[in-house]
């Protein structure tokens, strides 16, 4: 499921990670780790982006590939956090 957040997430990934790999693109479902474009520093940059852009608090237990390892997964994660916030 694509949400309104996906475009912003993709933009961030492309601006911050893909610029290092000229001409490279990444599909929504593709693993960022396996593609070798997100390391520990990149993870921290992504978290800083999600927390500031979407006003989230990312708990440590949520910093897992299941939530953050592809544009699609990040999108779903952000959507669930925003939904969770809206229902509180």
């Amino acid at each position, binding site marked *: 499921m694509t949400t309104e957040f996906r475009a912003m997430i993709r933009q961030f990934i492309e601006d911050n990670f893909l610029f290092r790999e000229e001409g490279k693109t990444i599909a929504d479902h593709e693993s960022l780790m396996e593609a070798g474009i997100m*390391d*520990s*520093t*990149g*993870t921290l*940059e992504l978290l800083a982006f999600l927390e500031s852009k979407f006003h989230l608090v990312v708990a*440590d237990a949520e*910093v897992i590939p299941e939530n*953050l390892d592809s544009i699609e997964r990040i999108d779903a994660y952000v959507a669930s956090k925003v939904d969770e916030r809206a229902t509180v």
Partner: protein
Amino acid sequence: MVQVSPLAPSLAEVKKKASQDETAAKLAATKVSKPAIAPSGLSEVRPLSAADLPEVAQLFKKTFRPGVNVPLQDIVSYFMEVFLDGPDHDPACPSLVHVSAGREVSGFIGAIAQPMAFGSRQVRAVHACNLMVADPRRDSMAGARLLRSVISKPDFCFSEGANSISRQMWVTIGGHVTPTYSLKWIRPLRPVAAAIAMSAERLSLLRLLHPVGALADSMLSRTESPLALTLPSPVAGYTALEVDRQEMVEVMRQLAAMYQLRPAWTPGQLERRLEHAEHMPAFGDLVCVKVMNRQGRLVGGYLYYTGRNRIAIVLQVLAQEKASSAVFLSLLRHAKEKGAVSIWGRVQPGLLDAALQARCIILNGGFTTVYSKEKEILDAVARGDAVLAGLAGELWSHFVGGLIGPKPEQRSRSAEDH
């Protein structure tokens, strides 16, 4: 004549077994809170437990001691002693492991408790160290999770000697690099011998040139050439006295009290660190000196290792502001008299001017990084009003200068077997 039965174990063997038995007993008796089982298939970050130590030791050996013949049990024992059992362990700010989805320990970050005082109040502080990940490519989130978790608990978290990658990670999570604390100074004392000694670290055969170096330096010192790097005369009115470990504890406590953000070692903690520091196979013997003024008052102190290849390494030097040049010069002269050909240490900001006056070379010594939500604490660090290295850092520990091979009694035993 007392004859020892050939079947009786040697004293070294008995001590070794006792140490192993003690460690095994500690491991068995330690309240190993059964690691919380994460939902199946998910990785997690949790506090280090004794049961993790064998895997953590393997990871340490692979990451920081590749090719070094250090027994794993020695690493396990040392990690147990520092991170789980004793004054350097704060259960509220524990060391952490990253456990992969396959339930293997795939990462670690050490948290050495370094209680501090800021003005009149206590600060829960931690020195983060030994960040390691088994497979950074496969577990690219592990390092991030470990660092994020370790900084989240104390009031103040810091690290020294970070490389560029770690530095960037700290900055990305909102930490700061402290440029002056990231510097190191080097002062050749006998320039030709120093050059030979430093080259001999790469090619040991060059040690044969030591007598040549000594002769060249002796001739050079009789000239007025700036190449001789002659030390200035000692500053009048100050006396340097070698002291034992016990007295050095009190000297360090008094001198550290000058700083706004200062170590507040718990009872026994500083004594224990000095004990570790005294048995540092990579660094040589530890020398402890206090410096007094004419009135017999303590104005400074320093600890340094005599070093391998006579390159001395400073563990700590602290001084009152007015006596900083005198104390720093005393350190250089003392080390030279002990036979050092060169000496180096991390910069303590208040002594940077003294180091420059003494014509030290100043270099990047690895980044010192800090994290706190309290601006006042960060401001104190920024203006150099803090003690972050030496006995407050990790240079006293065997993570830096030890765990480099079998212990002497193990080597002797091995030699006897042959």
